[in-house]
């Protein structure tokens, strides 16, 4: 029997010391699905997606990504990270490398691609996010929005099947949020599997297949965007939506 769930999370539990951050999370993601996770800060949403590419270790439960079980094993983690890309809230570009070197670092050193090929691919993705002409500048010379687009291009360079976005627009000035969201909408339309932690409800309505609401380390509600926003069931989600949509 073929399972077309690209990500399978079962009974996931995680503690920071005695603090129970993730409680019995069960989540299946189909190939090509776009999932938006929202919730108040401290609800465990970032921790959840960071478990998926093993930036965070967990104590109980299991995660299987694209047939790879996420456990503490160098080979599996390496395979996992070639398959899963992550975009961070604070971009985390490497400030000592030029934009182009930021993009080619992993292809050259991890995939052992020839330099020319890696540069060609990198330039292709830089063009797609609209910053090809800045290729030889350094990260700190770009605006936040441009840096985040570079970060997206960097994560695309290894042609991942799954992309994780950890609040990609939260650190941006309002004027720059749109340029990053536009790139993300384009990616969503390409059929790549995406999990986005974000509070951009417009983005969720436009592209998400499912929206997940988390609070206190649990998945509280999960629905299609239409139902999620129009008929929230739980009291907690109703309050949350009221808060973030009231202005």
């Amino acid at each position: 029997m073929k399972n077309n769930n690209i990500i399978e999370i079962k009974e996931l539990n995680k503690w920071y010391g005695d603090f129970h951050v993730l409680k019995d999370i069960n989540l299946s993601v189909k190939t090509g699905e776009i999932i938006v996770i929202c919730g108040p800060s401290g609800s465990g949403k970032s921790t959840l997606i960071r478990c998926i590419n093993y930036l965070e270790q967990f104590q109980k439960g299991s995660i299987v990504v694209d047939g790879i079980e996420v456990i503490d094993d160098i080979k599996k983690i390496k395979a996992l990270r070639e398959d899963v890309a992550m975009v961070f809230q604070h971009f985390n570009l490497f400030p000592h490398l030029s934009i182009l070197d930021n993009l080619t670092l992993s292809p050259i050193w991890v995939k052992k691609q020839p330099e020319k090929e890696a540069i060609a691919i990198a330039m292709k993705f830089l063009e797609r996010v609209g910053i090809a002409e800045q290729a030889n500048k350094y990260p700190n010379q770009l605006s936040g929005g441009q840096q985040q687009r570079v970060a997206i291009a960097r994560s695309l360079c290894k042609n991942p099947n799954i992309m994780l976005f950890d609040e990609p627009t939260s650190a941006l000035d309002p004027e720059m949020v749109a340029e990053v969201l536009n790139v993300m909408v384009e990616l969503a339309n390409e059929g790549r599997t995406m999990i986005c932690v974000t509070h951009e409800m417009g983005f969720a309505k436009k592209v998400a297949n499912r929206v997940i609401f988390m609070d206190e380390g649990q998945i509280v509600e999960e629905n299609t965007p239409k139902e999620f926003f129009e008929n929230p069931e739980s009291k907690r989600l109703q309050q949350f939506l009221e808060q973030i949509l009231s202005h």
Partner: protein
Amino acid sequence: MAIYKEKDSQKAPIETKGVVFWVKNNLFSTPLDIVMTLMGISILLLIIPPFIQWAYIDANFIGETREDCTNDGACWVFVKMKMDLFMYGFYPKAELWRLQSALLLFIVMITSLKLLKSTKLKFASFSLYFIIAFVLIHGGMFGLEIVNTDKWGGLMLTIIIAAVGIIFSFPIGVVIAFGRASNLPVIKSICVTYVEFIRGVPLITILFMSSVILPLFFPESITFDKLFRALIGITLFQAAYVAETIRGGLQSIPAGQYEAADAIGLSYWQKMLLVILPQALKVAIPNLVGIFISLFQDTTLILIIGLFDILAMVRITSADSNWLGLETEGYVFVTFVFWVFCYGMSKYSSRLEKQFDTNLK
């Protein structure tokens, strides 16, 4: 409601620029400033003219013996006549060409580093130089007569010790710094113990230990060269300080950099060497150069285990009965040599800092 017109940028007011403005603002801005400036100038006037009088105007440059120093000022003839000893110690005169060619090759090597593009070739040229230089200086191959290390001395020895200390302590220090920042408790505690042990002991003790105590641990048939033992001691000593300096740099790297490197699939060593270390070094350069400069100065301590660096050579030569009482000239000369090297290192460090600076360009 009001709508404002767009305004053009204007030039800065003229009286906030220029030499006169700078002098007025920085040297004579308050009464205290004026007093300090005048005091500073008078101290300089008190010291510099007499020194120039002694070191240059009244000094003796020509001649070959003590008797040629007839003027009141410095007797540079002494330094001139003893120059070979200051530079090369007791290295046999007939073999000095070997040292000079090593020096010449050094310039060739540095030029090759500038010209070569590939990092591998650069590294090859760099390593090859040290092998050739060792063969040239030590001999024993290609018909070159062996010159034992007890004949090595002077500035040459100072430079050899400092260079070996810097080049080898750096990678060791990097690894220890990584170890100290690592999550593995065993590795971490080994590195912490090492650093804390070395830093708790003065360099002199380490030198004594490496020259007196170390041989006790080995059977009598194995004898290490004295210089070799000193080099090991100095390298291990310096590595602890390099490690601490780099650790300071490592701590300034935000966790996001580690996470991003992990997320794009780099291995531990790739992450540390390609992403973390270059950034940590940039922060650590001023302090690193600081400890390398003090290493250069600390090489003078090898006198106590019977090796003669440039400073020791001054002491020895000024005990020469033909040249008694001329220590001052010798020490002024050594001061100048040390200053040139240390100032050069410090200048080089600020150039490196600029090279590493990718924040604004």
